[in-house]
């Protein structure tokens, strides 16, 4: 167990080191002064320039600079945005929860809809309902998320006028950001009509969540279906049936668990797709998350923000992937037998 954890820790550290080296190299690769990209401050005069160079050790060798860069990262000294002058740590900590929130809701819909539908399709393999589900999911899976989101906006916002199309909540509700997770923040805020604010936030959530969830659900349905069909063909299912277990017992005891295990790594890959989709959908729905924040930074040539944003997002994705992989290891008895016994 400890060996697995250690192995993943090393894996994570190495990946993080590579990523931060990459983001550090951007300091020199972006077409501005390294001082500006690193700190987000455009020095007004030579004195300030010198002070910044000394403070950030830019006159030392690259290796020393990098060491200090890492130190700054861990101390939370991420520099400021070239455009707004706000500390990047604050800006990212405001934008990232919005993306995580959106992705989390989308992910729960994916799981709640995708797994049952996939199982059903797998159990009914090669029948009419299976073909229907399967072909619908192939079609949905091939739809670009941008198009789907725009169709949703056209239909539900502009045509019927049921749902809002921008932001997390109507600006008329003044919700100060405390945790960054909107529903928690609403509950923490006094002096507002909590019920109406929650309803409004919920209405804002529907379209972007569905747009993201649709595509990943389709993928998950197909993954689960394939897996269920494979498991059903295993000899132990025949054995179970021979023992006289009911279909229900077979499904819950043998099929479900065994089918989901191989599906998990594929699901992990879906999470990165989902976050990428979330970032695209954010810009369409003006969702103030990390995706639209990064797009803004690109438009504004905000180099310091781009550097940190790239590092933050990629680190998040790596962390999620590794966490899922680890989880997968821990619950899969067929992989590392020795360790799993010690749990």
């Amino acid at each position: 167990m400890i060996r697995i954890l250690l192995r993943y820790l090393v894996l994570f550290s190495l990946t993080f080191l590579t990523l931060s080296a990459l983001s550090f190299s951007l300091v020199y690769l972006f077409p501005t002064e390294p001082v500006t990209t690193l700190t987000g401050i455009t020095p007004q005069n030579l004195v300030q320039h010198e002070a910044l160079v000394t403070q950030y050790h830019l006159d030392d060798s690259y290796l020393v600079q990098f060491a200090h860069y890492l130190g700054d990262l861990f101390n939370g000294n991420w520099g400021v945005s070239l455009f707004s002058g706000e500390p990047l740590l604050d800006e990212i900590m405001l934008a990232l929860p919005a993306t995580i929130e959106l992705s989390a809701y989308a992910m729960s819909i994916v799981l709640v809809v995708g797994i049952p539908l996939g199982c059903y399709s797998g159990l009914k393999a090669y029948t009419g309902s299976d073909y229907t589900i399967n072909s619908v999911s192939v079609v949905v899976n091939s739809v670009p998320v941008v198009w789907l989101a725009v169709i949703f906006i056209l239909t539900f916002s502009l045509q019927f006028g049921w749902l809002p199309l921008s932001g997390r909540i109507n600006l008329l509700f003044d919700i100060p950001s405390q945790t960054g997770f909107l529903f928690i923040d609403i509950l923490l805020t006094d002096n507002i009509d909590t019920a109406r604010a929650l309803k409004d936030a919920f209405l804002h959530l529907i379209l972007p969540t569905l747009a993201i969830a649709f595509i990943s659900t389709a993928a998950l349905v197909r993954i689960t279906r394939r897996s269920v069909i494979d498991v059903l063909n295993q000899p132990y299912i025949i054995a179970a049936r021979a023992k006289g277990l009911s279909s229900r017992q077979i499904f819950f005891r043998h099929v479900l668990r065994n089918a989901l295990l191989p599906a998990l790594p594929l699901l992990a890959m879906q999470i990165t797709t989902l976050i990428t989709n979330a970032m695209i959908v954010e810009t369409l729905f003006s969702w103030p998350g990390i995706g639209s924040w990064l797009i803004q930074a690109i438009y504004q040539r905000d180099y310091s923000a781009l550097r940190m944003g790239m590092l933050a997002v990629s680190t998040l994705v790596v962390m999620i992937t590794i966490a899922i992989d680890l989880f997968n290891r821990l619950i899969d008895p067929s992989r590392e037998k020795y360790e799993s016994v010690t749990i």
Partner: protein
Amino acid sequence: MFNRLAWPVTTAVVIVMLGGCSPQKYSSNINEGLVYCSESDPISMNPQLDTSTTTADATAHQIYNRLLEFDPESGRIRPSLASSWTISDNGLVYRFELRQGVQFHNTAYFTPSRTFSADDVLFSFNRWRLQEHEFHPVSGGYYPYFESLGLADNIADIKKVNSHRIEITLRQRDSSFLANIASDFSVILSAEYGDALMSAGIPEQIDELPIGTGPFKYSDYKQNHYIRYDINQAYWQTVPAHSLIFDITPKSSLRLAKLMTGECDAVAFPARVDHAIIREREDLVLAEKAGLNIGFWAFNTQRAPFDNPLVRKALAYAIDKNTLLEAVYFDSAIRAKSLLPEASWAYQADANDTGYNPVLARKLLDEAGIKPGFTMSIWAIPVERAYNPNARKMAELIQRYLAEIDVEVNIVSYDWTTFRRQLRQGNHDSVLIGWSADNGDPDNFYRPLLSCDAIPSGTNRARWCNRAYDDILDRALQTENIDIRKALYLQANELIFDKLPLVPIAHAFRYQAYREELSGMVINPYGGVRLGGVTKARD
């Protein structure tokens, strides 16, 4: 086996997901507070520092007041923070009686201890007027509106007579002076706030966390996202019914979409292509009003044969302005007869105008000795402007009209920077361009467009210099009597019609789109949007 479970689960999920979408419209959910979708971030919270419409919209009439203001309907100047004013006989001394008991904003960052007084006027004016004023260099120290007009140089002195009376002495008579201090940029700041910030060592804060006397108090601003304003409960005029939010939405298509769903109550700059959609919908209103602008066709009067008024007249008679209005402005403009649009108090409804008469045009050309086959150039501005949304197309139409009288036309266009430089050097035969004014004073049209002094500064595209015309304009500034001034501008119109250095074509409309629940939305041709008096019907 599994279907017994699957369907209840999926149905439950779908029901949960659809639970929020009752068939009720989203727009009917929210009704307190006013959301205005603006197009961009303001540069500053103080319009003294920036002349862009965006800054003026977000600040000038929401947070601040001026000594005087324009009536958006008639264009007349009316009292605001100054309750009355007198002008000395020689027209050089302006005495303002200030309103008593006007409160400055009481916010989290400033609590005023006194009401508005002469000190605040002195502070606000001296900030842009006097180089040595301690606030002059704060936030860049550049005050574009006042510097472009040379206003600071023309003010000899500003004196506090008593706590509610001030006296401004000019060096030269300037009857557009009142219009200038009624413009969006001449806002009144709080001297007490300035002093407090100066002693705290953070003077820049005066332009970031503003304090004014206007209907709304600044509350919060997030770049690229929103500006939040609270109601100023102590406002000296009608207290606004709603708090205000500027939702910053740069894409005009998204602004329209949000207007449709009700996420915005009103939007800035509805795009021309969206007008039809807005008109079609019953829940939206597209208000229009002739703007303070003019699109025209100017001849380079320093070049032969355009130095001959006959030639200029002939060309003017050769074109059909109504067709141009239809084809280029899609009827979102009205025909211009003189330089001034209807919104100006000196507008002359019965001004002379050239009609479409190609036979007369050819005859005049023959008189001037211009042979058939004569070739000239028309320069068309390469950018889209309210006063001329498609100069290229207009040039092509004129090309066809002039072909009928045997005049050949080359259409010339460069990129915008080169275009303006070449124009300033006078390399054109004629040009399709226009002008948007900053305030309601007629002098803001007549002087920059056709006076002799405006040739070097580059706004006189006709390069026309007529001493009699300049004399009329100067005389018009020597008096404050509106009727006398109006009579003088009528003379100027006649002179322009007689010499025709330029052909006025159109005054483009200004548009404002908003939801029909709003009342009190008035297009302000004299600057930024005013949202203080707007109310929203509640369901």
